[in-house]
Structure formats: C-alpha cells, structure tokens
C-alpha cells in the first residue's frame, strides 16, 4: 500500500471507513455537506485498485460534472500513483460516449462521431434535413423545426420515434412530431453526430438490443460508484438499471437528499426511493461535518428538519470543529442598493488577502449583479461565475470550427460559423454561402475554398488564418501543431488595454483547462475527434481567478467551500422564491428552496454573513422564513 493511501485510510472516521471498505452488494451513502464524501469515494476507488493489483477488472465512477470527475481522477492518482488506468471516471455522458465509440456500430454509429452541444447547431441540422425531406416529397416543412423542443423532451425521457406519437394529446400533432423526430434521428446518424440526450438514449438502446454489451460492462467493471446520485436524471437512472440488469448489485451511490436542487432538470427525491426499492442497498450515513463551524451546523440541522422529503431516520449533521466563537452574523439593510454596497464595503475592508477565499452567494444572478458593481466600485476584484457552453471569442470559435471542418469537411453549418468568426478576427468579408457554392463547383472542400479566398486578402491575420486552414487541408494530422501555434497566436489578434482580460484570453485558458482534462481522462494525447468530443462535453468558462471574490448562485456553489461566505437576499420571495410561495405551488417547491438555503450556508468554513434588505427593487419584503427556521431571529447583527 502506498503511504498516501495508508495515511488517507488512517484519517477516516468510523463511518467513512465502513463506506470505503464496503465490499459486494448495493450501498447508499447519505452524505451531508462537508462530511468528506469525495474523500470516501476517492479512498474507496484507491482501496479497490490497491487491493486488486494482480487482477485486471476495472472500476466505474460516474460523476455529475466533468469538473468533479477530473478532480476525482487527480485525487485517486495521488493516492495510488500509476494505478488509475483501469478506471473509468467521468460523467454519464463521457461514459456513454466511450460505450458508443466502442459498441455503437451495432446501432450504425461510427466511432469518430461529432457532438453537437449547441441548440442552434441542432436546429440548423434539422432544418437542413427537413428541407431535403420536403424536396423528396415527404409531408413536412421547414418550420417543423419548432418540434425540436418536444423531440428533446421525448429523447430525455428515452422515448424513440416509434412511440412518440402516442405521447401527444392531439393525434395529428403527434404524428407530425414523430415524423420530424424520425427525420432528425436519421440526420444525426447520416452526419455521424450525437446530441446530449441521444448519448443516454442510444446507450440504453444498445443495452436493450445487444444485451452482451451490458453483460460485458458488468463483467469488466464489477464495481460501480455514482456520485451526487440525487442529481441524476430519470433517464440516467434508467440507464443504470438497464446496464445492471436484474442481478447486478455492486452499485455504490453517494447522495444527499438534502442537497437536491436540480428538480427542474429531473433530479428528485424519488430517485433515491426507487434505488432503495430496486437495489435494496445498505444505508451508510456520513454525518461528521469537518467543514463548517458548529454554529452553521446547528443552523443547517434546524433548517432542514422542516423538510418532509427526506430519508426516514436521517441523522443530524454532527459538528466536529471547536465551538470557539460565534460564526454567523446577520445584516439588515433598507434597500437592495444599500445591501450591495454595505456588503461590498465590508469585503473591501477585510483586505485583498482574503478576497480569493470569499464568496457572495445568492439565489439568483439578478441579486448578484448589483453586488458585483458595488464590489468593483470599491476596487475589489470580483467575478460572477458563469457556466459557458461555448467559446465566446471569435478567435476560439474559429479554431474549434476550423478543426471540426478538418474532421467533417461537409458540415455546412460549422463552415458558416467558421467563416463568420474569421471575418471578425481579420477584417474580411467572405460570404459562406458563396464560398460553399464555389467549393462544390471546383470540387474542393469548404475549408480549402475559404482558405484560398482568405489567402488573397491583404491583412496579415487573414493570411495566417488561411495558412492554418491550408495546413489542415493538406494533412489532417497537422492539427496538433496548428492548434499549438494558434493557441499562442490567436489571443494576440485582439486589441486590449492593460489589465483587462479579453474574451480570447478567457477562452484560451478554458481551452487549455479542457485539453489537460481530456488528456488525463484518456491517459495520453487525444486524437482530433476525441479533442472535439471532449470540448463539446466540457464547460468553456475559464478557471476562476484565485485572487478574486467569487459571486455565485447557490447552484453554481454546490460542491465548493469558502472561508468567508456572504449569503445575500434572505427575504421572502427572494429565498424562498416567489413561485414556491404561490398558493398553487407544490410543497416540494418550498422544500427545494429550503435545500438551496441549506446548501448555501454549508459552504462556510470560517464565518457566514447572512444579509437581507427590507425592499428589493422598491418592493417591501419581509425576512425570509428560513431565518426563523435556522433559529436565527432575534440574533440581529450590527
């Protein structure tokens, strides 16, 4: 055993040890915030790897985000260096992509499929396909593209085109949607493209049509771990069921029914119930909170006790830190403007040294925006963490599209995107439709036609872009050097003033972060199609600035921790939200709001400041009921 693993096992609590040592059979670990669930998961994977050095089976660990997966892999590698190879650690989508690359041929999927992560790309693809179908005389028209949302809904519920029609109230609507759905799926296959819903759906289909695939996964991966199980969607859960079949029980899930905040995306307490029903797992509770001060733990316990949708017998969180000083303080302001500036002044006064360890949390982004403004006015470095699902600079939009073109030369939509992006980098006026027509007439690829046109421009940027393009046309194998040079050169094509981070620099940082993670996931240099598949699956925001105050919505803060947490907007109709307070609202909605508050306060490592104002946007608001529920009323801080 490595000294790192030995030390990690040594530091486990009794319950953590039970979880890490868990052998065969299903288990559910209920892990509240700050109880070291990632420690348990990584130690468990490391222990399995370490104790099976002379065996060759593999371990499957599914995470909710790519970031969590990347971090888990790094931590396991630290515990058992060199042993992580026989693991598959990643998101459901990454896992499905791997299964489809390997066995997708049974469904007519080729291993080098592309991934469309943008709705606009998918709409364009469907519109093209509809146009072709109309030309062939099928009873559809271009504006049937409006059915795409409904089709997505069907796909996320694992409903294929054959059964689609019966899902509609109106029969003729149903038939039409089913027809469009069939055309959409055929277009995806034809162009060798996958969409996100399709990855789960097709993997389910594969497990269904070729049972040997599921049998192989069970045999080669005898241990499955699922992180953040409460956040899995019904489709993801059904995939697990399909793959497990009726006899496989080695599913080890970590969940917290008190941290379900993705109900709108299908996450539900019911998932945990269904899992308990179908897998009859043993229950392990991790309750020793090692993160938060006892004050915060008390408030959290008292708050969440008001929820009913919880696992029966769920134990209280146990504070383990010293109870030396009060850790929670409250602020009340007259207006939201005062709240923003008051919080900003307080953070500014704490000094630049603490900013990187400070977070401002709120239920919605709208509450954060004035705080950001106020912080900047005080000269505090701060940023609202956002999730980007695409590159925002023309520079990196171009690079991604250009590499896509090298892989799928006939993708007209990507071509249009590439030409438009290039027009913005170098002042050119290339017309993608015209270029495409010329390319077809001359028998050239789109990329080559564009590169030749760009080469003729006088701008040095245009010529450099053209050169990259032509090198890719000559040999697709040149993509590595093209990417390397472009990563260095592209950010320099933007004029910027000192000290301002440009979009291109943000994108470059995001690109490099993603590239590192893709390498780590594969355990080697990725091929072009893997890079592009990996980029599609990963977020495209730059890594956070370690010296800036992080402004986060509660959803974005999940899984993170900070020394100093400011939770703003603790007022009725803000947190809890207006919808959850409507007379028609289901009780589950208010429970989810409560869990939002629970997640927010349990991010705290040192001190928590809870603030509210008496009015927001001119409307009077009373104090949030959660303050009372946390046992905080009366304790009115200065």
């Amino acid at each position: 055993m490595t000294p790192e693993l030995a030390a990690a096992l040594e530091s486990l609590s009794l319950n953590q040890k039970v979880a890490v040592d868990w052998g065969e059979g299903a288990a559910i670990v209920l892990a509240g915030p700050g109880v070291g669930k990632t420690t348990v998961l990584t130690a468990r994977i490391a222990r399995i790897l370490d104790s099976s050095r002379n065996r060759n089976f593999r371990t499957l660990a599914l995470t909710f985000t790519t970031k969590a997966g990347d971090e888990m892999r790094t931590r396991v590698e630290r515990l058992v260096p060199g042993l992580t190879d026989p693991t598959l650690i990643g998101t459901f989508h990454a896992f499905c992509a791997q299964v489809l690359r390997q066995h997708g041929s049974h469904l007519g999927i080729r291993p080098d499929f592309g991934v469309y992560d943008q709705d606009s790309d998918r709409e364009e693809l469907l519109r093209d396909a509809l146009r072709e179908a109309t030309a062939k005389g099928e009873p559809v028209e271009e504006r049937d593209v409006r059915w795409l949302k409904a089709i997505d809904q069907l796909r996320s519920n694992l409903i294929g085109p054959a059964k689609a029609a019966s899902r509609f109230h109106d029969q003729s609507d149903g038939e039409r949607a089913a027809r469009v759905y069939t055309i959409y799926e055929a277009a995806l296959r034809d162009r060798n493209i996958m969409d996100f819903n399709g990855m789960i759906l097709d993997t389910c289909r594969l497990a269904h049509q070729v049972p040997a695939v599921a049998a192989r996964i069970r045999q080669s991966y005898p241990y499955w771990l699922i992180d953040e199980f409460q956040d899995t969607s019904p489709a993801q859960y059904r995939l697990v069921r399909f793959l497990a079949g009726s006899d496989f029980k080695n599913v080890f899930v970590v969940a917290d029914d008190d941290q379900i905040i993705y109900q709108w995306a299908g996450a539900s307490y019911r998932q945990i119930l269904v899992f308990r029903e179908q897998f009859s797992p043993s229950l392990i509770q991790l309750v020793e909170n090692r993160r938060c001060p006892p004050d915060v733990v008390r408030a959290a316990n008292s708050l969440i006790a008001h929820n009913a949708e919880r696992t029966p017998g769920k134990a209280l969180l146990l504070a383990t830190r010293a109870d030396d000083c009060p850790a929670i303080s409250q602020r009340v302001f007259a207006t939201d403007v005062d709240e923003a500036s008051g919080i900003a002044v307080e953070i500014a006064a704490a000094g630049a040294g603490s900013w990187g360890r400070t977070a401002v949390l709120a239920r919605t982004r709208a509450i954060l925006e004035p705080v950001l403004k106020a912080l900047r006015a005080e000269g505090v470095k701060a940023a609202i963490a956002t999730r980007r699902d695409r590159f925002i600079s023309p520079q990196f939009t171009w690079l991604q599209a250009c590499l896509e073109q090298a892989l799928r030369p006939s993708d007209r939509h990507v071509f249009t995107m590439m030409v438009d992006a290039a027009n913005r980098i170098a002042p050119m006026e290339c017309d993608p439709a015209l270029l495409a027509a010329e390319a077809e007439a001359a028998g050239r690829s789109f990329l080559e036609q564009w590169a030749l046109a760009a080469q003729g421009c006088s701008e040095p940027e245009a010529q450099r872009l053209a050169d990259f393009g032509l090198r890719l046309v000559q040999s697709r194998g040149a993509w590595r050097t093209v990417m390397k040079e472009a990563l260095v050169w592209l950010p320099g094509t933007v004029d910027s003033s000192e000290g301002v981070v440009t979009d291109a620099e943000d994108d470059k940082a995001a690109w490099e972060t993603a590239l590192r993670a893709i390498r780590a996931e594969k355990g080697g240099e990725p091929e072009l199609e893997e890079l592009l598949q990996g980029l599609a699956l990963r977020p495209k925001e730059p890594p956070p600035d370690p010296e800036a105050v992080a402004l986060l919505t509660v959803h974005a803060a999940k899984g993170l921790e900070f020394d100093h947490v400011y939770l703003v907007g603790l007022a009725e109709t803000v947190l809890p939200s207006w919808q959850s307070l409507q007379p028609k609202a289901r009780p589950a909605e208010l429970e989810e709001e409560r869990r939002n508050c629970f997640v927010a306060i349990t991010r705290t490592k040192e001190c928590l400041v809870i603030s509210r104002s008496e009015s927001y946007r001119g409307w009077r608001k009373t104090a949030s009921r959660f303050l009372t529920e946390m046992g905080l009323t009366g304790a009115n801080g200065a």
Partner: protein
Amino acid sequence: MTIDIVLEEPEVGVWDADMVAVLEDVMTILPGGTNGVTVRVACVWNADKEAFDPRWEFLDAGGQPMTGKAQRATNLTGFFAYLPLFWLNALRDAPDEFTPRASYWGRLLRSVRIPNELENEALKTLADLDSRLIAADPHLAEIARGIGQATQVAIGEGPGAAKFNMLPLGIEAMLQRTGLMLRNENLWPWLPLASHGQGLQSLTVIFLLQAAALQQLTEAERPGIEAVFAIEEPEAHLHPQAARTLLPHILALKGQKLIATHSPYFTQHVPLHDLRLVRLRGGSTEVAAIPRRIVSDLPWTDQVASLAVHSGAMFEKDSVGGRVVATFWFNEALADRLKACYRADPTGAARRSAVDTLRHSCRVMVSPDDERELGFHGRRMRGEIFFARRWILVEGVSDYLLLHALGQALDWPLDAHGVAVIDFQQAGSPGIYAALAEAFAIPWNILADGDAESTKFLSQLRERGFRENDLRTSGQFVTLPPPNNLEDQLFADGHEALLREVLEKAGCGHARGCTEADLRGLVKNRKTDYMGKLASRVAGDPQLAARMPAPFVGLITRLREAGHDS
C-alpha cells in the same frame, strides 16, 4: 501491406474474464453476443520519408477504426501479451540461434534455476581446479608478475598485481557456455550442433522454438494466452521424407500455426481447408482458401431445420443473421428439397433462385468424401500443383506426355509458364480438381476424350454445381471429337504410319506389318510406350506438333497467345 488479426470468442462467456477486462477498451461485441478483437496492422510506403510506416488500429464490430482509449499503445502490448508471437525466419543459422544473446535460447537459459548448494559446490570445485591448472606451469605465474607491474605504472600507488583465470567464475558465465551436443546413432560420437548437417541444424531450431514457447507460456501463468507460431519455410535444408514428416511435429505446437512454405512435400499432407494460397496478381497480394461455410440469403425455417437433420451436417443456422449456411457442396436433388422448404413462402421464386445461387457458390467446397477420395492410398495428389499458375486436367499419362511435348514444340514450355497438367484418373475425379481450382482461383481447363467417359465427367461437374456456362460455353471443358479417344483421334488425323514407326522403336517389332485392328490393340495396350516415343518426336518437330489432335494444339496455342493468366 495490411493484415487484419481477427480473434473471436467461440461461444459466449468462454474467454477469461480477466483477459476481457485487460483488453476491455479494444474488445468488441459481435452480433451473436460473443467477444471479438480485430487489430489491423498496416505497413504503408511513405514517399516523403522514403520508408515504410508501420501502423496499427483496433477495429469495431463494424470494421471502423476505434477511437479514444482504444488508440493507446498499451492496448497493443496487452493484446500481444495474450497472443505471443513466436517467429522463425527462413534464413536461420542454427549456431547463431544457440548463443546466449539469441532471443529464444537466451530466454531459456535465463529461466534455468540452479540450487544454491550445488552452485556453491560447483564454484568451489572450479576455483580449486583453476588454481591447480594455473599453478601447473610456473611460467604462467611469471608472466602474471610481469603484467602486474603495468597496474603499478598506470596508477602509481600500491604494489599492483595480476593473475590468470581459466575457468568460469560465476554460474551465469557457466550457463552462457551451455552448448548443444547431438549424435545421430547410438555408436556415433557426440558432436556439437555446428558439426552436424544443415538439415538437422534447421530442424533443431524449430524444436528450440517449441521449447522456448512452452517455457514462456508456463511462466506467464495467465489464462487466455494463446501462442501464434509463424514459421517460414520449415522445410529448409530437409530432404523430402523429412519435410513430409515435419508436419505432425509442427501441428503439435499448442497455438495457431502460420507456416509459409515452398515445399510440395510439406504441403502434400496439410488438410485442404488449412491451405492458404498467397500470390501476387495485378500488383496486389491475394489470398485464397476453400470456404468452410457459405452463408446464403435464405431464412432458416422449421422445414429447413428438419431437412438439415436428414441431410447430415450439410445445412446449419447462421447464429448472426438466422440464415441458412451450407457446409459442403450439394446436388440438384438436395437443392430441390431445400426449395421445397419454401413452397409456402410468398417470395417463392426469389427463394428458389437463391437456392440455385447457393448451390453454385458451394461447388468449390470440399466434402469429407472428397478429402477421402484425394487421400485414398496415401495422398496421391501432388503438393506441387498448388504452386502452379494454371491447371490442365487430363485423363491419363499419354495426354500428359503429349501436352508437355506440344508445349515444347510450340515454344511455350508448360513448366516455364507455371502450368500443371494433372492426370486426374490416377488421383481423384475431375470434379474435385475443378472445385479446388475455383476455390484457390487457379485458372483451369479440362481436356477429355470424346467417348462416354467425357459425358460422365461432365455430369460429375454438373452434379457438383458447375453450370453449363462454367464449362462448355467458356471453353474450359474441351473434348476430342466424339466418340474418339486420343488413339482413335491419332488414327483419324492420319498418323497410322507414324504410330507403326514409334511402336517399332518402342520395341514392338511386329508393329510395322500388323493389321490396323491389331495396331489399334497395340497402341491401346502400350500407351505409355508409344506416347513416350511420339512425344519426344513431337517435342522436337514443330511441324509434326501442328498436326497433332486439334483440341490439344488449340489449347496450347490459345494459352500461348493469351498469356497464361487469362
């Protein structure tokens, strides 16, 4: 050059789970639910680098290169750990193969374990012996003293000394000196390998390969490993008898054997299904073999299943697509019964034509009866025919002699053009040879007499599934004008006087004066004698050759004009 290495699990769940897990990233699932691995290894000429670029990739069940984790080099290492390759090339030099640095011998030596006790004892004995040998001649000690001064001069400190050593000082050094001694007969002296003939040396290397493979596979101790032996020209330097007896030894190697051979003797005893004919044609390498099973478009039905029960192992169900599979050739009667199975099928006409297509494709298959016929009284078929570029099938020796003579006379010697003339009546039936030729894609012709026999041959071929179009229409089946046999035809062509002359030369004194009827009797009974003489006359006389029976002359002329490959 591209080689696909295809491994398929024979039945679901047979492959070791641990092996499957190791190869998980490259292992596909075949339509029947079994596991499979396909690796494509290619060597492509790179004009820029002026060198061959080796490349490899694993393929998915649809034959597409797999991406992602499957592309990591560790997969290839893992793959070959389960499929170790033992390779012997044609140019092997036995003494080199038995040096400690040679891969197989070296590996064997490294695996030898000597108990510590014995090692210590041996080293002590050797040290004793060594000092006694050195001390035997005082002259040696003197020389050592002289050389010892050298270290003094070079380093300049201390007294400096030197001594001699004659015998090996360590167990490794001793093992490395291990040599092979052989003796052919009990009373003959033991001689080192290098002092034996090339044949024995070459053979020894093959058995060394076997020993090394056994050793390595025992050491690996992992289930699932299956060795592949690639041996080039195992027959090298061996006389025909030894080459023929080598096969069972090679077949005894545990694992798959890939053997490249140029030896008709070695080939002669290889089961026909195991033969792969490799040849260069039109710039690319072609590999031909006899199919073991042919999958049809016909669906497997209950009726077909009961027909299969009553017709031996002739028809099987394809586990992948549920189609009818044929394992041997089958005759018209069976084809009719198969057609009858689809009587109720709405697409009956299409099914019937699919049965015909299947029967036609199956004509190239070899049944156990065929193999028995070819192997009757030892293998009468000659291995050399597989090295020919064209076969001409004839009935007997006289046709054989005449054809060769015509080739000589018409300036198109058959051997020089890779044509094998097979007198099939001595070794099988024309049907089998025509089937083999089709299976191995060897162009072929039949030249038969014009008598009732030829009708029999023709019906044999038809019975097997050959169609009119494959035979007479294409000119592959040619006979002498009915009802003539070769001798009749020679008379008909006005060669009576010539026949009297050659028979006389062949020792039949009375041939010149006998009646025509007697003469006909003579040529019939002494075919080889008269044809031996006639053939040598024909070979040296192009004008005479041109007057030989037209089908014979015509065939050679046609081949000469077309080039042999047409």
